């Protein structure tokens, strides 16, 4: 018999599923919301979680959040409609199994049994005992391998240190940069004075496209959900089509104005507010609802970027990159100094992650005294 957690917003469904799980031989404990589910995880340590997908309880969000809290926990999603596309998306997000309606006893029993018995990667703290055998010749070989290996390792360390100190930069043909993003192919840089987005090819930073906004000053740009997102100086966040004119699709009155940076982690749109020094986590819905806000663990957040695994921020006050804990972004898990901004000639205003490296955007100080500069930062180990 396994302890099974159940997350479902509907009381009647919770009772019914608890009964079915009990009939399948499991002890079910129910929760109505994510916060209750996380509490249930901590207190009861269930072997499996069952999540019911519904309009007021998005299973994709739940799978992601529960997987973050308990990465090895199998999560089964029950659908209220028979939607193969939705099922596959949930499986890609991390659901161990997805079951369609109707939720019969037999189907649920099979699904829970499959999810509990699914073999995954085995983890262990100790290694298997080795077989005893002749080891003396092996020991001699190991000694010489270690000696030469150490020399090779020291040489590699020295080369890495040299690479770490490498810096490269490019001066750009405009003077008022405000933000930047990488769309997987090109850099997009916002210049507030010319009210334009400049698209640069990464190989030589040549400009391949310019998009002008006659009615607004873009100060930040990001890519999320197949759209281009821009923030204007007036405090509007606009979702745009990826066509030649970046046609506006939706304009949001920014619930938290003074947004200077944006980044998309695949599920949430993160924004940073330079005035209140807060990081906001938003769902891409009709209102860009802020689901959580966190105090920034640095000086002044100027930009955000997601490197595929972690959320990073650019601290323009302390001249550093800060890696934020995605569970608790008010906590920094790493800090990387940016010495090119230390002498005060440039103010860090933009951040992007491309091809394994961070790129920062600097505005020349005093303002309007020289071209903007794009820095390619050293690889972070």
């Amino acid at each position: 018999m396994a302890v099974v957690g159940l997350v479902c917003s509907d009381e009647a469904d919770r009772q019914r599923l608890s009964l079915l799980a009990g009939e399948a031989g499991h002890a079910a404990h129910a929760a109505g919301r994510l916060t209750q589910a996380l509490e249930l995880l901590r207190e009861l340590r269930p072997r499996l979680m069952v999540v019911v997908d519904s309009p007021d309880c998005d299973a994709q969000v739940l799978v992601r959040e529960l997987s973050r809290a308990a990465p090895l926990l199998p999560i089964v999603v029950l659908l209220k409609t028979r939607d193969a596309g939705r099922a596959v998306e949930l499986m890609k997000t991390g659901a161990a199994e997805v079951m369609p309606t109707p939720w019969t006893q037999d189907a649920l029993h099979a699904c829970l049994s499959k999810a509990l018995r699914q073999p995954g990667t085995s983890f262990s703290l100790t290694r298997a005992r080795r077989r005893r055998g002749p080891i003396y010749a092996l020991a001699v070989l190991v000694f010489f391998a270690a000696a030469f290996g150490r020399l090779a390792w020291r040489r590699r360390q020295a080369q890495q240190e040299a690479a770490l100190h490498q810096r490269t930069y490019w001066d750009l043909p405009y003077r008022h940069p405000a933000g930047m993003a990488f769309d997987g192919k090109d850099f997009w840089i916002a210049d507030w004075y010319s009210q334009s987005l400049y698209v640069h090819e990464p190989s030589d930073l040549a400009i391949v496209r310019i998009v002008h906004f006659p009615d607004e000053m873009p100060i930040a740009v990001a890519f999320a959900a197949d759209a281009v997102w821009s923030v204007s100086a007036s405090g509007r966040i606009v979702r745009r089509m990826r066509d030649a004119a970046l046609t506006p699709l939706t304009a949001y009155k920014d619930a938290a104005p003074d947004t200077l940076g944006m980044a998309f982690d695949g599920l949430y749109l993160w924004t940073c507010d330079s005035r209140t020094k807060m990081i906001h986590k938003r769902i891409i819905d009709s209102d860009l609802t802020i689901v959580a806000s966190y105090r920034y663990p640095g000086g002044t957040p100027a930009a955000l970027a997601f490197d595929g695994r972690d959320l990073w921020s650019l601290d323009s006050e302390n001249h550093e990159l800060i890696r934020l804990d995605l569970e608790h972004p008010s906590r920094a898990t790493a800090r990387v100094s940016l010495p090119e901004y230390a002498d005060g000639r440039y103010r860090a205003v933009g951040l992007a992650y491309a091809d394994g490296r961070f790129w920062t955007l600097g505005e020349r100080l005093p303002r309007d005294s020289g071209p903007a500069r794009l820095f390619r930062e050293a690889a972070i180990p």
Partner: protein
Amino acid sequence: MKRTVRRIPARIGFAESAGRWEAWGWLEELTASAARLSAQAELRRDETLSLTFELPGEPFAGLAARVAWSQRDADGYWEAELRFTSELDRRRLAAALLDLLSRAF
């Protein structure tokens, strides 16, 4: 052969004449000419179906396949071996698998 901890989900489409809902399952094994699929929906021998899935970097949509054999496992799920019937699909899959395996550690 390379086994990965990440399982690949697949959409299963049935012929219109079968009158069945679209289903889904997991690809347990994949080669250029065949696949082993695990699904809660019943998979019948000699049934024709279409498979849609994604390999890293490349989507495969509506690959025609025939169920070579199927059986029910201990959990009540259906395990089936599918044979891809289109030569074009098999070649494309071969190229994608070759690329994927060449990048595997």
